[in-house]
């Protein structure tokens, strides 16, 4: 089964609020995590990543937090805008042998931003 899962399938926020999307993972050997944004009719778009030896990384309006103790990942979006409405996936990269790495996705959270 999937080793990456999400706590909430949907999240609705008001424009300007901060959004927090959570993700749990089960593979303690994962060494890299990525958040993707997927808009309708498009492929996943990279948002931000974090290595397993870090606990926080910030980008423009986004922050990813990693808690390895409880195997939890979160994506925080500041001042959420209508254009942030999309499905958000966390994904993990694990070594699947030798120089091969595999990207595994969770089910996703639908973020809806209300104007």
């Amino acid at each position, binding site marked *: 089964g999937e080793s*990456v899962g999400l706590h909430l399938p949907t999240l609705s926020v008001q424009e300007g609020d901060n959004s927090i999307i959570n993700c749990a993972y089960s593979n303690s050997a994962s060494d890299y995590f990525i958040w993707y944004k997927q808009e309708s009719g*498009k492929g996943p*778009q990279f948002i931000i990543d974090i290595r397993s030896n870090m606990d926080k990384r910030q980008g423009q309006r986004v922050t990813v937090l990693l808690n390895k103790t409880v195997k939890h990942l979160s994506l925080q979006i500041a001042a959420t805008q209508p254009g942030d409405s999309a499905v958000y*996936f966390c994904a993990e990269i694990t070594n699947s042998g030798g120089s091969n790495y*595999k990207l595994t996705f969770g*089910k996703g959270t639908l973020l809806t931003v209300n104007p």
Partner: protein
Amino acid sequence: DAGVTQSPTHLIKTRGQQVTLRCSPKSGHDTVSWYQQALGQGPQFIFQYYEEEERQRGNFPDRFSGHQFPNYSSELNVNALLLGDSALYLCASSEGTATYGYTFGSGTRLTVV
């Protein structure tokens, strides 16, 4: 700089038929991975091609096969289509197999009727 391009964008096939989907990787990328995304689900890894060989494979039957060409482009073939094969098929390219930098195409929406 072109990103990952996939063709066709939409496709309708009948059960039992065969389909071929195509992917051109981002410039500078030599590795192609294919994913199946059912409606409301996360993408599921099908297989990965590097140096014209299948390097890794997910939990998909042998009806799913692929190919990579010398120019790094790739094809995904699905034989004996089932209704359950209806999904968005995504191609992702990267530079080498030991990398974290995946770029996704917009996918091919396959509908099996």
